[in-house]
């Protein structure tokens, strides 16, 4: 933690960056996102196991993006995966954001997509046991039972959009959900409105989800909404042999068109 603070101060003092996006102490032993622009604010940085938020989401926030060159504390591999995917989607320029990865006895400074990829090769992406167990259970369910499961979960949804707003890949300036001329998806959080929202989101993220699980963690009513995109991601991986967050130079599986596509309907 001290080396992280040290590094952050050096970078700020040298003028290499304008701010560090990291973690600070939050309510009841939790950790919260923290923006440090001065040595005083750097001293509040924390790096430990409790730092679970994927900070890449905030890097896309207007007010933070415009602070100037940023360093992000990438305690979680998914933050780097997000940066790779955002680079692949031309939302972040390669080299624009510095990643500080707390490591054994120090801090690793990564500045390019290639460095992110090399680091990620050392830390394999793995779902939590709880997520994997529920995902397996869902996959094993007959379709009608699975549909009933999601209908019950969606009935709790109130469309607060915490899932969307916490997602690093939901960076659209104007989300389809917020378009009202025409209104594509019903706004109310009734059965149809909720279902359409979650299915549109899952489809939009298929092949792009970095599997950080942030959406599920953000949900105030505990809907395991991340499993929808995990499920979609597994399908894309099985069909196309690629997934979100793996590389900065990848074409999205579901939105790339080539004359030699194996599907005839597309040509």
């Amino acid at each position, binding site marked *: 933690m001290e080396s992280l603070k040290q590094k952050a101060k050096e970078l700020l003092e040298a003028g290499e960056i304008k701010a560090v996006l990291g973690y600070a102490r*939050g*309510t*009841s032993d*939790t950790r*919260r*996102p*923290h*923006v440090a622009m001065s040595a005083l604010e750097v001293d509040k940085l924390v790096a430990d196991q409790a730092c679970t*938020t994927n900070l890449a*989401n*905030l890097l896309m*926030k*207007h*007010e*933070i993006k415009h602070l100037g060159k940023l360093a992000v504390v990438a305690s979680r591999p998914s933050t780097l995966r997000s940066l790779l995917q955002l680079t692949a989607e031309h939302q972040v320029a390669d080299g624009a954001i510095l990643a500080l990865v707390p490591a054994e006895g120090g801090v690793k400074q990564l500045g390019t997509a290639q460095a992110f990829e090399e680091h990620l090769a050392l830390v394999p992406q793995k779902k939590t046991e709880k997520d994997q167990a529920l995902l397996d259970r869902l996959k094993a369910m007959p379709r009608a039972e699975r549909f009933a499961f999601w209908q019950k979960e969606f009935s*709790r949804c*109130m*469309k*607060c*959009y*915490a899932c*969307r*707003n*916490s997602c690093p890949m939901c960076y659209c300036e104007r989300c389809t959900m*917020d378009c009202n001329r025409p209104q594509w998806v*019903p*706004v*109310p*959080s*009734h059965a149809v409105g909720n279902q359409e929202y979650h299915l549109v989101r899952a489809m939009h993220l298929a092949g792009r989800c970095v599997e950080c699980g*942030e959406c599920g*963690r*953000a949900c*105030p*009513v*505990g809907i395991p909404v991340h499993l929808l995109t995990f499920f979609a991601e597994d399908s894309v991986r099985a069909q196309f042999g690629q997934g979100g967050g793996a590389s900065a130079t990848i074409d999205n599986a579901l939105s790339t068109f080539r004359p030699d596509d194996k599907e005839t309907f597309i040509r």
Partner: protein
Amino acid sequence: MAERYKLTQDALSALFEALAKDGRRILAPTDADGRTELNAVTSPDQVSKQYLQTILSAKETVFPKVERLLSYTTEGGKVDLKDAQPHALPTVLFGVRPCEAGAFKALDAVFNWDSRDKFFNARLEKLAIIGVSCTSADEACFCTSAGGGPGDTQGSDILLTPVQGGYLAEILTPRGEAIQALAPQFFQAGATEDKEAVLAKVEKAFDREALTAKLPGMFENPVWKQQSLRCIGCGACAFVCPTCVCFDIQEEADPKKGERLRLWDSCGFSLFTLHASGHNPREVQSARWRQRIYHKFAYYPERYQQYGCVGCGKCTRACPADMNLKEHLVEAAQAQ
């Protein structure tokens, strides 16, 4: 001070039966798939044993997340318009905390401000509240800074305080008396247990009135921007809030029929104040966050002579970015 009675755990079961016999639905905190939610119950055994609060507030019982206001059909140029009628069931809200019981007053201030809202009133008229005092609190709680307290009686028709062998019952309103009258034998008069001794200790964190006096002078204070840098602009805080009352009106229609719906809205959304022209008077998240604070602690007292926050802390617990309202209000109170 209302007279205090003793209500044993067995007597509570019998009271639930008496309420059901009287045709009332009982809503209480339950453990549903690891989540504390308000659900219909028939016995105290179904009530969550260990809960601080429900995730969502009890405002749903009078202000549902989606409500139909009217519907219509059109045929041959003729419009048949039907006003919706509120579907209000006689309901007893059991086990809500004193902070939330006190929140209905803030909802009432808006729904009965310039016109009387028939949907809200139809439900409120059929609602009785059996609150339960808090014997524990967490870091998000700040009721004592918001004019309440862990054993506050405001808003409850009956307030129960857990004591050895059952509850201490305070009958506070005619609605409470009507419930007592359903089963008077279960309320033992002359209870002597010390209520204050079992209540949670919630220290006062800031002076609410001083903050209200200060807010008009700190509209441009950098504190709002600092606090809201990590806010992701979702509606979790507003939707779980027992006093947040803002709603949207949506029309769902096709050429033959349609309906008009009222739904929860949030000042945290960028769309909330977006004008048709494209101009947004609250362009950035800091302006929206400031609005949330000002609405509750400046505009509410100015307009309704009461506050729009009861210090329940639900927003803090629900926030994905850990926007801790108590902490941020203390910061505002101390800001230069």
